């Protein structure tokens, strides 16, 4: 049987795509500057067994296999770098179980992030990781990227909420890990979370559900300078005031959001800081007041507190819709995801502005200030080759600036295809070799989501090949003890 026949047998006609139009949709994701050719086939499995069958067929044919969620990735992680089979997990979208008593749920990877919280919120629980894409991104994709979000400042990122996983490995075996809190052996759940589909395809996810806080306060502070706003954030963190979210938007970002949504952010300022505090009702006002006081000390000219749920939702809607708003400002935008220590925010933003000016690019910033996680957006038009070149160069310079300030190149989007070369900025050959060794254990054929995460340098390719060979040899020789 041909590969096509095998795949059809595995997922059925309604779970199979091989027409040109259908395939081309899978050569894109949300990251606009990077796209690849289309995959050779797309399959949309409905069960773990179907995934196993697909993985077997791919292995037998020796073709690459690339898992994909909703395609909201920003680094090309779900793009078919070498063609092959794209496994779109969007039809495995059932919530399998919710244990309200034990505050956990088991979901299939195609469940939309927000759908889980919408389901559980009436029962007083929610799923805390909240990437801005949560209305459309899947929990499986969130696991692949170890997604963050505004509320991760207080609640932690996806990895802190994944209790266990069921995963189809590249050899088509299926394992479950992390189901008990102190599972013996190595923490495979930690390794698989954030591995960007290079180690296996997750088919079930056990997640922690968090009690909805009793009280929530949201306020907005406006500053006359971005620098002052950054200093206020650094001070709020240093004082240990522990807000739930601290989100910053600069002048251009505010303009974009206001033009699109009219949520009432003040336009006549250089930076808006969105503040959320949650917890017990008893101290909530006092805790918010302490954060607001820190803002005023740093020159916040204007502070407004949301008085109603509708006002709170409105303030958040602007922030969460920022990406869409940028779409109205320019044909394309390119978003970076560097991280710096929180005390270095003022310096980092100053560098971003300098770099954007140097490359003559419009730059809007909407970011997780409380985590030191920058999201500089560079606006451009991809039809202009020179602009594209300048955008890519500016992006690299921004990441280098983050690293120079003691930070790193990705806080929550992942490395994918796009940021591969940036890995060399933070890791040396020995560090990358250790990661290559991990990949070799799971994925000795290197056919699972090839060309992702690791730098494309020749040296790194050799490391991966070496690690894979070592793993194959030890497997064949049965020398695993």
């Amino acid at each position, binding site marked *: 049987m041909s590969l096509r026949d095998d795949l059809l047998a595995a997922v059925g006609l309604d779970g199979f795509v091989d027409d040109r139009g259908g395939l081309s949709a899978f050569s894109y994701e949300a990251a606009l500057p990077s796209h690849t050719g289309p995959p050779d086939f797309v399959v949309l499995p409905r069960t773990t067994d179907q995934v196993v069958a697909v993985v077997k067929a791919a292995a037998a044919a020796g073709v690459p296999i690339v898992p994909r969620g909703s395609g909201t990735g920003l680094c090309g992680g779900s793009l078919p770098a070498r063609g092959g089979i794209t496994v779109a997990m969007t039809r495995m979208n059932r919530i399998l179980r919710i244990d309200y*008593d034990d505050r956990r749920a088991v979901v299939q990877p195609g469940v939309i992030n927000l759908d889980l919280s919408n389901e559980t919120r009436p029962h007083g629980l929610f799923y805390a990781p909240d990437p801005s894409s949560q209305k459309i991104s899947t929990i499986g994709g969130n696991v692949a990227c*170890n997604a963050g979000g505004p509320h991760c400042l207080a609640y*932690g*990122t996806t*990895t*802190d909420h994944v209790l266990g996983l069921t995963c189809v490995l590249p050899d088509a075996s299926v*394992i479950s*890990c992390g*189901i*008990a*809190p*102190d*599972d*013996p*052996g*190595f923490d495979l759940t*930690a*390794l698989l*979370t*954030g591995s960007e589909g290079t180690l296996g395809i997750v088919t079930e996810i056990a997640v922690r559900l968090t009690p909805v806080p009793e009280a929530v306060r949201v306020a907005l502070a406006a500053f006359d300078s971005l620098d002052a706003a950054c200093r206020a954030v*650094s001070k709020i*963190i*240093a004082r*240990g*005031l*522990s807000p739930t979210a601290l989100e910053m938007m600069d002048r251009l970002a505010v303009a974009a959001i206001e033009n699109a949504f009219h949520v009432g952010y003040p336009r006549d300022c250089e930076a808006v800081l969105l503040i959320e505090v949650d*917890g*017990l009702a*008893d*101290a909530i006002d*006092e805790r918010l007041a302490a954060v607001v006081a820190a803002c005023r000390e740093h020159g916040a000219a204007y502070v407004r507190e949301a008085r109603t749920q509708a006002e709170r939702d409105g303030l958040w809607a602007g922030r969460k819709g920022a990406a869409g708003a940028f779409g109205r400002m320019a044909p394309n935008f390119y978003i970076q995801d560097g*991280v710096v*220590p*929180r*005390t270095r925010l003022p310096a980092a933003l100053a560098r971003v502005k300098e770099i954007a000016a140097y490359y003559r690019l419009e730059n809007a910033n909407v970011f*997780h200030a409380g*985590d*030191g*996680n920058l999201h500089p957006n560079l606006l451009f038009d991809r039809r202009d080759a020179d602009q594209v070149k300048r955008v890519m160069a500016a992006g690299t310079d921004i990441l280098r600036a983050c690293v120079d300030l*003691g930070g790193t190149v*990705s806080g929550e989007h*992942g*490395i994918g295809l796009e940021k591969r070369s940036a*890995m060399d900025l*933070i*890791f040396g050959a020995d*560090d*990358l*070799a*250790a990661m290559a060794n*991990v990949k*070799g*254990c*799971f994925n000795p054929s290197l056919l699972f989501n090839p060309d992702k995460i690791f730098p494309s340098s020749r040296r790194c390719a050799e490391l991966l090949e070496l*690690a894979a060979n070592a*793993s194959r040899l*030890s497997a064949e020789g049965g*020398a*695993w*003890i």
Partner: protein
Amino acid sequence: VDLISGATLDGAVVGEVVRPLTLEDAAALLADAGERRRNVYIVGGATHLESGRPVERIDIALVTGGLGGVVRYEPDDLTISVQSGMAAAQLAAVLAEHGQRLPIDAEAPEHATIGGMVAAGVAGPRRYGLRTLREALIGAKIALADGTVVRTGGMVVKNVSGYDLTRLMHGSLGSLGLIAEVNFKTSPIPETLAAVHFSLADGAAAARAAHALYTSRLPFIALHAASDGSLVVGCEGHRSDVTRLRAEAERVVAACKGTVVEAALGAEDVARCWSGRMAPAFGERTTTFRIASTPSQIAAAAATARDAALRADLETVWSADAGCGLLDMSVDAADRPEDLVRLERSLLDGFDAVRVARCPARLRSRLSVFGRDPQGLALMRALKQQFDPEHRLQRGRNVGVI
């Protein structure tokens, strides 16, 4: 830890003892041991040796106590990088100067090293609210068996650059490499801390009261019940939050016919209270099984475990983290190895996940220690093979005799 050549460590005779003072020293010692084909057993404060399988032979004990310094502390960033041999108490003191802490309880904080606690995946009675060190970890330097030093993560609080090798070290028991330096995000010490000690009729009543507090969904930091009928409730946060939590706890526990005995207040006394709750019930003779249940089943789990011990004719003492659904059941079986083996078997029949947290080596060698093999064992073996191909580190200590 005091250790000399010829001494016994967890039942194994120690050949040489080495105490590196720097990361470079440690890496060189590992490389040298490799050239001489000696196995190496990494030791921190020797407080959790019994949470793995006993090793047969220790050629070289590598004691991390000399790696005891702060590498970099950025209080305003709430991040710290320390050498792994630093004692938990010392680290707590460094952080407390800036009003910060690492969210972790240590049984013997003067001895337990921070690297050892990461390697052993230690978490104490406040796990429900504080979570584990896994969530505080942001980076590490790891010296592999061949002396290569690998850097993972960094000094920022959010990082998805490459595989998460930092968290892979948590609970690895040192089998993949020497955790030489660790970076954490720290937390502000809450304005007010309290550990409120209640007394109830018996363990079952304490577990029921703890569960009632869990179902309130109020943000208690700990709900720790024990077979002696004691229940300690952790309340931390803003002053008025703590007042409210204490009042709620008193109301709920009173409805279960419990009374307040005392309350520890302030960071130091509270930490001491929780450390005390971790002390072994029967001293060095203690065997403790850690049973992973769920919050809703915790009272039933305690009863099932106690019945199993009764059938083996062993006296039991248990404590339960009612927020996490974890049960620690302890027995004194120092003179009754056959009964202990029977008890472990019946616990494995009754529960999905049971592992030994503490047990004298000569008894432990007869137990499975980790319970059922995990499904990912073949992968774990492959990881061991890649990181330590000659199996020289903590040889045989981990699950599957890795």
